[in-house]
């Protein structure tokens, strides 16, 4: 149980993990559920429990599409996507922890890829 970490994530995200009533609507609504090891309701619960290491080490945090469907439909106003974003920032702000590096880009991009995709991905996945 890491309370400092939990408080920092809550403060950073502005999301209210303690309001979660464990209904699972976020996970029911998540379009990328199938690609995740931990799912939106678990993100929220793990933050609430202060379960730092497992969550930060999980590739699931890079599978969130930030589509905000969970935020829109959560009956308790928990805003899971904002929680996940805060955890992701917590990871990539560490030294050398960028999930996407500029060197990776040429391989991933093709000539039609809009610049929007590049800047968005870098903003999400790199500090």
């Amino acid at each position: 149980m890491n309370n400092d970490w939990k408080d920092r994530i809550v403060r950073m995200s502005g999301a209210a993990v303690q309001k979660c009533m464990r209904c699972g609507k976020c996970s029911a609504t998540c379009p990328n559920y199938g690609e995740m090891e931990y799912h939106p309701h678990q993100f929220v619960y793990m933050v609430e429990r202060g379960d730092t290491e497992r969550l930060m080490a999980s590739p699931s945090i890079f599978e969130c599409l930030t589509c905000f469907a969970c935020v829109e439909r959560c009956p308790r106003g928990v805003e899971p996507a904002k929680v996940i974003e805060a955890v992701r920032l917590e990871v990539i702000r560490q030294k050398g922890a960028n999930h996407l590096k500029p060197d990776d880009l040429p391989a991933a991009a093709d000539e039609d890829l809009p610049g929007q995709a590049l800047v968005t991905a870098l903003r999400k996945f790199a500090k």
Partner: protein
Amino acid sequence: MQKLGVFVCHCGTNIAATVDVKAVAEALGREPSVVVSTDYPYMCSESGQNLIKDAIREHSLDGVVICSCSPRMHENTFRKAAAQAGLNPYMVEIANIREQCSWIHKDREEATEKAIVLGRAAIAKVLLNTPLTAGESPVTKRALVIGGGIAGIQTALDIAEAGFPVDIVEKEPTIGGKMAQLDKTFPTLDCAACILTPKMVDCAQNENIRILSFSEVEEVTGFVGNFTAKIRRKARYVDETKCTGCGLCTEKCPVKKVPNEFNLGMDNRRAVYIPFAQAVPKVARIDPDWCNMLKNGKCGLCSKVCTVGAIDYKQTDTVLEEHYGAIVAATGYEPIKVDRYGEYAYAQSKDVITSLEFERLTNAAGPTSGTLLRPSDGRHPHTIVFIQCVGSRCTPEMGKTYCSKICCMYTAKHAMLTREKYPDTDVYVFYIDVRTPGKNFDEFYRRAAEEYGVHYIKGAVGKVMPRADGTLDVQASDLIMNEQLHINADLVVLAAAIEPSKTARRLATMLTASMDTNDFFTEAHPKLRPVESPTAGIFLSGVCQGPKDIPETVSQASACAAKVIGLLSKNKLTGNPCVAHSDEWMCNGCSNCASVCPYGAITYLDKDFRMPDRSTKTRRVASVNPAVCQGCGACTVACPSGAMDLYGFSNSQIMAEVDAICK
């Protein structure tokens, strides 16, 4: 010099844990006029009250200050104790050092200091108190029940059985309410109509009950024991005294495509109609929005076929004025609109329905004669998904903050009955929690799961997606399996939250009865006075006070009736002496007070006054009817000349309190 006693209550640890009660008693004991000051663990207990009584007698006290809980809790207790010891009960003041001090502070030193200040304020006030004597008023021995659902019906029947006349005012053309629309009732599965309609008939036949259907209360004046209500009897264009309910007009009416509200718009009725077969009163009504005769004067068929001449196209609304001793609010509920939860596709697909619609689809008197068919294509659904908590248990932005309480059980009923009647149907229930605290409730739910094979899945539905083949792709989470599921369903049933009737807010204003933020009527005490409104003479029956199922509603309805009967059995009521009065010499006749008085207690008189120069002058002055005044004090604030004042809460008393606090 007056002699005062101060009594500081510990309230167990409620006060004593945060406030140093001994220090408070000691400090207040040093105040001028205080001759005795002491503390005690439970001042409201018999021995606590005896302590007060003994002190009053021993020290010949002129006034008493009790530092304890809110006056709403025990002011009456202590006033009675004082009266028993020979002290005028209005010479008792309460300093609220619990709700307004110990419960809301943490720091013991600060709380103690505040308790002393509150005690000083009460002492300052009681020094200016004068003995008051309450007046009496008679009781009109008739009750008004607003709302004719199962709650209103049960309350009315019980009051009538006790021998008092009752009027039921129902806004719809028939009594019966929501229960009349239900198919079977949990947990015994008896048919709703079979147990409700005899009670409806009892109402019609009971000579103490008058049913004012298709009517609405428009205005209420007066006070406990002496209410006057104006009731609008809406034109139904059919003479209620002549109509026999034969139904011939409803068969001949050529306007056939009117959405039938009794079946929630899932089939049609005529422009002239009787809501359902067992309606009470069984009287037709013409719907002016659809009737050709009323719209453009072309038709008149119903009038021609009516053998008793009951059709009256010229009927107009009438207003009935009636006097009552007690008023019961039994305005019930409505399911919320589920369109706003767009992820469930209620607005997109006919096969996404609410639970109340499901009731009609399984009811023998419903649009499908009780065969469960999909609204879109009239085929048997083979996979049904029930979604719980739609709009319940939400943040205020997302829906209702409360649990609607009835959904878990009626869903178990729906699921069980579906599996019993159509064993080839797969039934899924998505739940957050299954809440079954009631007699034989959990056993009922377990039967649905264990004996009837209903699939209960802990999780939520994220989205319902109508597909081109007419099925519904239900995307949901299964929290136990930690999986996201897709169920291809034929029918989705939403357990919509329930909310108080939209008419309740207007009624509460009329009755000056308080409501909570959800528009449920507030009870006088959540535990100890659950069927009374804080406004004297107003009683609460059924869901208008909070979500309940039928057994609970009926219990509460009877409890409510008992309270009404208790009131109507009295010949006289003791009033509240803390009422407004006007100093006629200071009053300038401006009418400000009359315009702010919510009870209509103030009138103006032209009175002759002997002036200092011995001439006689006629002046217009305010006069308060003490029987109607509730002592709210609005007039004393509005009065520009300071003529209006309140017994027991005079301007000078309040200023003395403020001075004592600010000292």
